[in-house]
């Protein structure tokens, strides 16, 4: 991996509601190299969006450090953060809610540039046109409104909006989840093209592990606000080490009628963050849990070069399942 562009250490997030404290994220640590695409996967409520937003300080983390290109973001003042912001952009899941219905596409795309005071209005519009071309939309879209476009086209507009600021780092939060599969493939191909062409660094959030495998170099697996496993994609999919990763992969329905279906079905529900299990948070559903799992919080450890897992059982690696 190249020198990290982003270094996240012991990131935590708590919310206090009606006197009780909810721990949403705990001890989140990972790096993203320059030009690397890292996937963040986990089920609903596992904390993916909270990590993505905390990293860009769209919400304030409760503890921990986020270094971007050597600068500690959590210590920046509001105006310093505003200056740093164009280098990092967020792409939202919902292509319908994230674009204002009252603004033209041109206004939407140039808004960020205007706030940054970049160029004059003609130069800004030129950048917007160029960004539209990058996402394969006609440049004359600048005069139209979001409702005139389909879901896939709106998601392209969302991507173009992020690109006008020429960022180095993008957090893409479920950018294709709201799209139909035939359109999803168009947008995935586009994102991968752009990432390669522009050398973008990306944190790609998704609950779809097949999409993540296709687009990411490395993958972080989350469960109830804790990192369970981190591994290069090729290795994670061929040989998952953590019991949760195994179960997650096994639960994905395959369209291949010849795939053998001796799937492993996890029992029970995802616990609530208001009432997390002691020790390993996965233990209430883990098929490999032993009594000690209730007592020790597993640390995220490097068990092989580039492979990290948070599980106290070392006897489970390899293809045991």
């Amino acid at each position, binding site marked *: 991996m190249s020198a990290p562009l982003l270094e996240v250490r012991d990131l935590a997030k708590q919310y206090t509601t009606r006197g009780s404290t909810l721990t949403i994220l705990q001890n989140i640590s990972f790096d993203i190299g320059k030009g690397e695409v890292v996937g963040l996967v986990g089920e609903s409520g596992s904390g993916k969006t909270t990590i993505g937003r905390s990293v860009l300080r769209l919400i304030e983390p409760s503890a921990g450090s986020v270094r971007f290109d050597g600068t500690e973001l959590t210590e920046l003042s509001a105006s310093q953060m505003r200056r740093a912001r164009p280098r990092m952009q967020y792409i939202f899941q919902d292509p319908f809610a994230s674009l204002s219905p009252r603004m033209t596409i041109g206004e939407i795309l140039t808004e960020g540039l205007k706030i940054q005071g970049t160029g004059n209005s003609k130069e800004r519009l030129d950048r917007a046109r160029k960004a539209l071309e990058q996402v394969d939309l006609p440049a004359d879209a600048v005069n139209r409104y979001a409702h005139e476009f389909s879901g896939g086209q709106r998601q392209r507009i969302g991507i173009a909006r992020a690109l006008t600021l020429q960022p180095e780092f993008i957090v893409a939060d479920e950018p294709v989840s709201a799209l*139909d*599969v035939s359109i999803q*493939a168009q947008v995935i191909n586009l994102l991968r093209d752009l990432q390669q062409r522009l050398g973008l660094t990306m944190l790609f959030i998704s609950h779809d592990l097949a999409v993540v495998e296709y687009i990411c170099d490395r993958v972080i697996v989350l469960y109830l606000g804790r990192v369970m496993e981190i591994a290069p994609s090729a290795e994670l999919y061929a040989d998952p080490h953590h019991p949760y990763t195994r179960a997650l992969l096994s639960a994905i329905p395959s*369209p291949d009628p010849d795939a053998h279906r001796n799937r492993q079905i996890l029992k029970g529900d995802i616990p609530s963050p208001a009432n997390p299990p002691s020790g390993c948070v996965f233990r209430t559903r883990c098929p490999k849990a032993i009594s000690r799992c209730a007592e020790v919080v597993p640390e995220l450890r490097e068990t092989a070069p580039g492979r990290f897992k948070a599980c106290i059982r070392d006897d489970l690696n390899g293809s045991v399942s």
Partner: protein
Amino acid sequence: MQQAAETILDVKGLRTVFRVRAGEVTAVNGIDLSVAAGETLALVGESGSGKSVTSLSVMRLLTRKIGAIAAGSVHLKRKDGKVRDLVSLSEQEMRSIRGDDIGMIFQEPMSSLNPVYTIGDQISEPIRIHRGADRKSAMDAAISLLDQVGIPDAARRVKQYPHELSGGMRQRATIAMALACDPTLLIADEPTTALDVTIQAQILDLLQKLQRERGMAMLFVTHNLGVVAEIAHRVAVMYAGRIVETGPVVDVFRNPKHPYTMGLLASMPKLGDATRMKQAGEKLAAIPGMVPSLMNMPAGCAFEPRCKFATEDCRKAVPPLFDVSPHHKSRCIHWQEV
């Protein structure tokens, strides 16, 4: 085999229209489908293709003012063995069929659960209405049903309200409600779409088990091809209000004979294969363009503007369903070449 089993649902030439500002649109345009006892038919397609309108039409749950069945028949074999055309029944007769002969499950469990009644009250209600059971025995039946759908501690859960259950548990509760009167047909419209993948696996497993035990016919609506392969015996692929390909899942997925089905299968990243594709520099085979608007349908094959096999002839008329094999059909005039 399944084909020999008795037909429970038989839909012929179903056409459903909606009144919109600009006039009328045809959301479902001549659908034929049948489901036998013990069989699962998956209706699959992208959003707006007409899956839900088809299932709502079968259940006669369209709001009269905006949508209506314009043509076709929906024959259902009831528990007493009598076959009725649901299209011609009165609303009162339909009410005696829904929840009794037909069980229903929807994407959002909360849409079938009433927040102000306990789970137990809601599951025992159909038993009291359709079976005339008394309160106590209906409640006992509800507890046993909750137990069958895998809700632990059922005797305590019947006293809880929907908001006290997780999403997966609520969906289990609506399944219990749908099964309360032992329906001959279960209609499930995207029952796992709102659930997490590990919970989806639980629910699919449960539905499969219950269906096998009870020998129900199941019409399963989904947009997820993986879920289809997981749960269904046969599949009908919908595009723009029509079935474009249908047959046994194994045949259709292994050997698709309609360019749309081929495109859908190819555009899905496949677990385990994505690493290879990435390393080989291969791209996902996206289908270009988008679904046509119902207001502005192409004259011939609706898929023609997006189809890489299209020829002049494809624009002339809507292709009929061709027999690829006795049970496998494709609505493509070039099915032999694709």
